[in-house]
């Protein structure tokens, strides 16, 4: 595969995450959001300290990380759950995981491909790193909303063959 091909991310896949993020925020958190210009990143560290991670398999492989500023995560979870939750509680991680799951799942329906999502994982802590696919860039979609800022970090690629 030529370098040029390796470095391309299908814009349709990125657009799916933009739409999905705004839809989930609007529907489940009752918050309007603004999407900034997507940019590539190569640092394995996510943008912020709270990460909701969802893996993809099938005709799309890789992961998406919903990376929240700590205070944004607290405020978004409060709006989502209708109550303030402790940052280090199981319920807080569960809420971040469910929001991440909805963003990933809602984006997946617009891929037009046979793709599957895994059970979400959540990491909370300063300076953690995410193992990503190396042959495609990570595209960071910055989001600002009435309940706080966060970033959607998309590191996925379309594969032509689905392993048996």
């Amino acid at each position, binding site marked *: 595969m030529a370098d040029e091909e390796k470095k391309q991310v299908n814009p349709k896949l990125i657009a799916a995450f933009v739409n999905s993020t705004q839809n989930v925020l609007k529907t489940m958190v009752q918050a309007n959001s603004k999407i900034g210009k997507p940019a590539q990143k190569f640092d394995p560290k996510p943008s912020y300290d709270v990460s909701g991670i969802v893996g993809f398999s099938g005709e799309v492989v890789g992961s998406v990380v919903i990376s929240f500023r700590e205070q944004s995560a607290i405020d978004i979870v409060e709006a989502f759950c209708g109550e303030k939750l402790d940052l280090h509680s199981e319920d807080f991680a569960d809420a971040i995981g*469910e929001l991440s799951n909805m963003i990933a799942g809602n984006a997946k*329906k617009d891929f037009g491909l046979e793709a599957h999502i895994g*059970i979400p994982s959540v990491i909370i802590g300063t300076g953690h790193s995410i193992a990503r696919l190396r042959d495609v860039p990570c595209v960071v979609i910055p989001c600002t909303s009435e309940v706080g800022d966060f970033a959607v970090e998309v590191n996925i690629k379309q594969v032509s063959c689905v392993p048996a």
Partner: protein
Amino acid sequence: MKFLLVDDSRTMRNIWKKVISSLENSETVEAGDGVEGLNAIKENGPVDIMLVDWNMPNMDGLTMVKKVRETDKTTPIIMVTTEAEKPRIIEAIKAGVNNYVVKPFTPDALLGKIDETLKRAGQTA
């Protein structure tokens, strides 16, 4: 009206419970995956309606629905999931799901589907 709520996310079960609490005489039984869902039916007896997520650890919602339908053809089941592609919806309906709600959803949308499903089954919320 007794609901069985099956989702590995407690957050989601709590959101469902808040929505359902607006219905008169509603009570809920909760389970965190398909295995717990089947056990809850055995331990608590029949329910009036089930809300079941698709993607869960241990046993997913689709497998649970198929197992429920081996012995129970009538209890209404609504799948509430991020799986929004048409082939998945068809797969769920074939497995025995009566109605389908795609996450994210508004409270009104969920209540509307519950009402519609119960009416089709000859019950009222």
